[in-house]
C-alpha cells in the first residue's frame, strides 16, 4: 500500500479513482469508468456464455449484436425462421433457461443438467389452463407446451444444451439479480417466479418464501462455480449485479428497501466469490447504472428499466477492459454465423420444395386436363 512518511497519513499518493472528487465521471466529462485492473482479457474467438437476471439479457443481446462470440448452444431447428426463434426466446441466453435470478437457481440448474437433482414438480398447468409450462422457466415457451411429451422432450434438449454450454465455454458472465424466491418445501426446488404467476397454483402447504442472505448466496455461487470448474477447469468468470430494482417484494416493507437489501447481499456475495476464485472478476455494471454521478439518467421513466444508453455505457466499459480486439458492429461471432448458414440453407431448401410442389401441381393439372 503506497504511503507517505512525510505527509503522515495513508491516503497521500493513492490513485485518483479512490477519491470521490477525483474519480471522474461527472456529467458531461465523459464516460464514468469505475473499473480498475482486470484479472484476464477475452479474445474475440473465445466462447462467452451468459446467464442471470433481466439485466443479463441486455448483456447477451449486446454481445450477439456486436458480433462477439456469444456462445448459443440451444438454437432453434434450422426450419424455424429467426423471427419465430426470437419470439420463442432462442438466443436470448446461451440456452433457453430464461432468467436465473438467484444463485440457488443456478446451482439447481446445473444439478438438473447433470442429473444430480430431479425436482418433484415437473410441469405446471398454464394460467389459462390450455397448456403446460416448465416450472423452472415458466415464460420461456410462448403458448406453453401441448402435453408432457412436448415439455419433456424440450427440457431434455435444453438440459443437454446447458451441459454443452458449461463444457465448451471460455468465459461465464453471470448477473446476480434477486435474493427473494419461492421454493418447494418438499425438495427445496427454487422457482424463478412464484407459483400462480405464470403457471402452476400457489399452495401454502407446498410453497414457501425465501429471502437468501449473503452467507447463503455466497455459498450457492461458490458451489456453482466450483462445479463448473470441475467440469471445465479453464473457464473464467465475470460476475455482475443487476442494477434493476425489484419489481415486487414479499417482505412486509417498501419495495425499494427490499431492493437495497437484496443488492447489498448480492454485492457482498459477488465480492467474496471473486476474491476466492482465480480468474473470477467482479464487473461493476450495478455501480455504473446507479452511480449518483449518472443522476439516474440511465433509468426509464418508471425508475426501474435500464435504458439502452445505459446498457451501451456498461458494455463499452466491459469491452474496453476485457476484450483484446473488440469487433466492430458488423462483425459476426462464430456461433451466430454458423446458425445463420444453417437457417439460410433451410430457407433455400424450403423455397426449392415450394417451387417443386408448384411444378407438381402444374403437372397434375396438365394430366387432368
Amino acid at each position, binding site marked *: 500500500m503506497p504511503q507517505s512518511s512525510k505527509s503522515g497519513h495513508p491516503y497521500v499518493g493513492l490513485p485518483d479513482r479512490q477519491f470521490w472528487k477525483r474519480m471522474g465521471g461527472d456529467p458531461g466529462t465523459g464516460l464514468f469508468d469505475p473499473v480498475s485492473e482486470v484479472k484476464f482479457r477475452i479474445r474475440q474467438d473465445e466462447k462467452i456464455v451468459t446467464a442471470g437476471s433481466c439485466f443479463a439479457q441486455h448483456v447477451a443481446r449486446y454481445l450477439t449484436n456486436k458480433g462477439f462470440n456469444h456462445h448459443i448452444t440451444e438454437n432453434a431447428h434450422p426450419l424455424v425462421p429467426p423471427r419465430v426463434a426470437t419470439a420463442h426466446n432462442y438466443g436470448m441466453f446461451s440456452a433457453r433457461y430464461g432468467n436465473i435470478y438467484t444463485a440457488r437457481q443456478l446451482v439447481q440448474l446445473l444439478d438438473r443438467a447433470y442429473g444430480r437433482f430431479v425436482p418433484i414438480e415437473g410441469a405446471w398447468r398454464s394460467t389459462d389452463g390450455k397448456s403446460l409450462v416448465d416450472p423452472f422457466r415458466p415464460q420461456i415457451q410462448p403458448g406453453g407446451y401441448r402435453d408432457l411429451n412436448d415439455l419433456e422432450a424440450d427440457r431434455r434438449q435444453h438440459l443437454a444444451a446447458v451441459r454443452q454450454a458449461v463444457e465448451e465455454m471460455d468465459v461465464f458472465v453471470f448477473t446476480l439479480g434477486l435474493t427473494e424466491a419461492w421454493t418447494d418445501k418438499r425438495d427445496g426446488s427454487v422457482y424463478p417466479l412464484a407459483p400462480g404467476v405464470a403457471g402452476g397454483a400457489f399452495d401454502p402447504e407446498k410453497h414457501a418464501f425465501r429471502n437468501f442472505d449473503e452467507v447463503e448466496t455466497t455459498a450457492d455461487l461458490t458451489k456453482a462455480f466450483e462445479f463448473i470448474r470441475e467440469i471445465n477447469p479453464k473457464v473464467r468468470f465475470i460476475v455482475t449485479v443487476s442494477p434493476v430494482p425489484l419489481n415486487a417484494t414479499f417482505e412486509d416493507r417498501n419495495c425499494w428497501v427490499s431492493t437495497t437489501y437484496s443488492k447489498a447481499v448480492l454485492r457482498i456475495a459477488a465480492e467474496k466469490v471473486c476474491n476466492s476464485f482465480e480468474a473470477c472478476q467482479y464487473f461493476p455494471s450495478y455501480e455504473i447504472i446507479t452511480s449518483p454521478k449518472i443522476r439516474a439518467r440511465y433509468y426509464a421513466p418508471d425508475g426501474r428499466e435500464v435504458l439502452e444508453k445505459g446498457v451501451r455505457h456498461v458494455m463499452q466499459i466491459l469491452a474496453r477492459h476485457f476484450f483484446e480486439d473488440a469487433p466492430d458492429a458488423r462483425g459476426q461471432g462464430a456461433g451466430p454465423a454458423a446458425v445463420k448458414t444453417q437457417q439460410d440453407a433451410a430457407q433455400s431448401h424450403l423455397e426449392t420444395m415450394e417451387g417443386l410442389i*408448384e411444378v407438381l401441381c402444374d403437372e397434375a393439372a396438365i394430366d387432368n386436363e
Partner: protein
Amino acid sequence: MTSIVVIGKSHTACIKAAALRTADPLVKVINLNREDDVCPAELAKAHGRDRPLLVALSFQGNTHNILCLDEHPQKMTIGGMQVDEAERTSIPHSVFRDVLKLIIEDRMVEFLEEYRTAFAGAEIVMILPPPPLAKVVQHGGIAPVLADALKQGVMPMHVRRTAYECQTELYREIAANQGIMCLEPPSQALDEDGMLGHQYGSNDPTHANEVYGALVLAQLKELTHAAVE
C-alpha cells in the same frame, strides 16, 4: 348459371379433374396457378350478375408438405413425439405452430377478405387440404421432379400428420375468426390413422387425385343444396 366456384392453387387440380369429367355446368374451378394476373375482383366481374351461391377457396394447402415432407439434414419431430430410433430435434408444438402462422396467416386473411368482398352475397368456404399419404413410395411411381428432393428420405408418417394437423388447426382458427366455414376432408378418403387413403393419392405425395376431387365436389354440392333449402 354457376352455383359453385372453386378458386385456389394446386389442390384445386383434383376437383377440376372431377368437374371436367362430369361436365357439370354449375361448377367452375379456377386454378390460379394456370391463370395470369387474376385478381378476385376480376373473377367476380367475369360472372356478372350470375353470382355463385358458393365460393370455395383452397390456398397454401401444401405448407405442411413444404416443411415436413422430406427429412431435414437435422432430423426433427414435433412436440417431442418419438417416432423412430433416430435422434430427432423436437420442435415444440407452439414453435411449429408459429412457423406455420408466419407463413400462412397474413396471406390467408388477405385472400379471404379479398374474395369475401369480391363475391359479396355468396357463401365462402375454406377447403381444408387433403392429409398426407401414409406411405410415400420413393422409388417408382413418384413424380420425377420430386424424387431428387427426397433423397434424404421422407419424414415419418406421424411427424407429417402432426404438421398437417397443426396447419388445419390453424386454418380452422383463421376461418372462425373470419366467420368462414371450413370444409373438412371427406371422411371416406381417410385411413384409420387419419391419413389420405392410398387410392386417393395422385402421382405425387402432395396432392390428391380425381377420385378425391369428386368426393370434395359432392361435399360442396351438398352445401349448396343446404344453402338453397
